[in-house]
């Protein structure tokens, strides 16, 4: 039985087409994925992402625990900063990708994928160092994403200017949106300018209504999971279970930037990654040259040789074309390389193009 988010009633009222996703009932779209996608690129969109997990890591040794469990480095982080990182298993595969919010030197908020939340919490609890505690707060928080070039103007109607985080990957822990206390961060998963807002579950409906009303004059649309997926793909952002999983090394999927093999502390997965050596596979962007749409799990060929497989792909509404991401043998990763994708028994030509496909 799927759970609902605190905004379920709003989705029904807004005419959302509800589907099960990661254990939750969420709208895949309201009226139209294409329109929702374009609203985010050109104006603004509002998403319910309350299914995301929020884990609070606290204690004197919380920073050490982070260094041991996560692939990135955190010493140089200041309060109010956000960092992308990975949880790796001892084989160097990815348990999850997550955002770490530094609330203070001894308090960190970890925002994890809904489908991995329980796995992550169990893994982290098993590996806490010294005086560190982990609390799963997911059910106490709702999360909304306000994304698009008009997001700032919308927020300015509701939030004091000094409480709106200016820089990318920074946040205000206690912002007031209207009269609702929110953690407000300049983050997002769309490739457009925007914010994410974390509020107490009980305030979620009120916050949704406030943002919808404030956004009305700017053409804000409520957006579902469908647009969230096309937007992140257009922006070349990886999705757990597609571009990475328990068996894929981050080095083989373009996530090496989040792995600091040279940091002083040992971390889980480091030894395995060092031993694996230079990756032979990498993540690339593909533009479909032939006719058709190439989705995930399509084998890629050069002649008779299978050289990789797509991990995500569909028609991208802003770019108005079919694109995919794939993991391929490095010898075929150069820009301009032509590959053939096998799609339902048909061969469709694709070309390696730069990632991200779209940049704001």
């Amino acid at each position: 039985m799927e759970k609902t988010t605190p905004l379920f009633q709003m989705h029904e009222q807004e005419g959302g087409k509800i589907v099960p996703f990661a254990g939750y009932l969420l709208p895949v779209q309201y009226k139209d994925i294409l329109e929702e996608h374009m609203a985010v690129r050109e104006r603004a969109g509002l998403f319910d992402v309350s299914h995301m997990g929020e884990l609070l890591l606290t204690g004197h040794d919380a920073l050490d625990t982070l260094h041991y469990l996560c692939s990135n480095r955190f010493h140089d982080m200041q309060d109010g900063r956000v960092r992308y990182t990975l949880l790796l298993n001892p084989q160097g595969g990815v348990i999850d990708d997550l955002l770490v919010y530094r609330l203070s030197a001894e308090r960190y908020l970890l925002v994890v994928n809904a489908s991995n939340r329980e796995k992550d919490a169990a893994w982290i609890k098993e590996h806490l160092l010294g005086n560190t505690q982990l609390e799963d707060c997911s059910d106490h928080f709702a999360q909304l994403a306000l994304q698009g070039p008009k997001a700032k103007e919308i927020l300015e109607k509701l939030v004091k200017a000094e409480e709106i985080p200016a820089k990318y990957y920074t946040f205000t822990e206690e912002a007031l949106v209207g009269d609702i206390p929110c953690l407000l961060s300049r983050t997002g998963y769309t490739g457009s300018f925007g914010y994410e807002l974390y509020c107490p579950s009980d305030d979620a409906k009120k916050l949704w209504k406030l943002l919808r009303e404030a956004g009305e004059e700017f053409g804000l649309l409520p957006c579902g999971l469908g647009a969230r997926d096309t937007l992140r793909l257009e922006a070349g952002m990886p999705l757990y279970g597609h571009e990475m999983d328990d068996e894929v090394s981050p080095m083989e999927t373009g996530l090496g930037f989040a792995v600091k093999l040279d940091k002083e502390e040992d971390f889980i997965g480091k030894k395995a990654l060092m031993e694996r050596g230079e990756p032979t596979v990498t993540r690339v962007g593909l533009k479909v040259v032939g006719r058709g749409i190439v989705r995930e799990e399509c084998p890629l060929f050069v002649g008779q040789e299978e050289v990789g497989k797509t991990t995500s792909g569909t028609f991208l509404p802003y770019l108005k074309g079919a694109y995919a991401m794939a993991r391929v043998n490095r010898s075929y990763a150069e820009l301009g390389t032509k590959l053939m994708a096998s799609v339902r028994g048909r061969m469709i030509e694709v070309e390696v193009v730069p990632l991200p496909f779209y940049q704001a």
Partner: protein
Amino acid sequence: MNLPKSMVFTKSHEWVKFLSEDTALIGLSDYAQDQMGSLVFVNLPMVGDEVIAGEPLGDVESVKAVSDVYSPVTGTVSRVNEELLDAPESINQDPYAAWLVEVSDISDRDDFLSATEYEEFCLKEE
């Protein structure tokens, strides 16, 4: 539900409009386009291709998924609506005008539902 009475329907959500005894236009029902959402790609057969009742004749794709289009009749494709290749959204906008193919020399056909029967069928699917 938007259902023209001049057409018959299949359980796989195609509409069929007979132009003569053995020639028919084939398209997707309003219910089908609504379920799929905005269509972004159409893959159609070529003129001269032979199609078989109950077997796929092509497919349509939305952002989220691909769906086969099943041929309601056995016959030979005599015309293809090539405008759809560049404008698949016409199917969403006016599903009963946006025919996919015309099939001639029809020698066999699926079981069809009348507009009323099809409406009941769709209501049960929901």
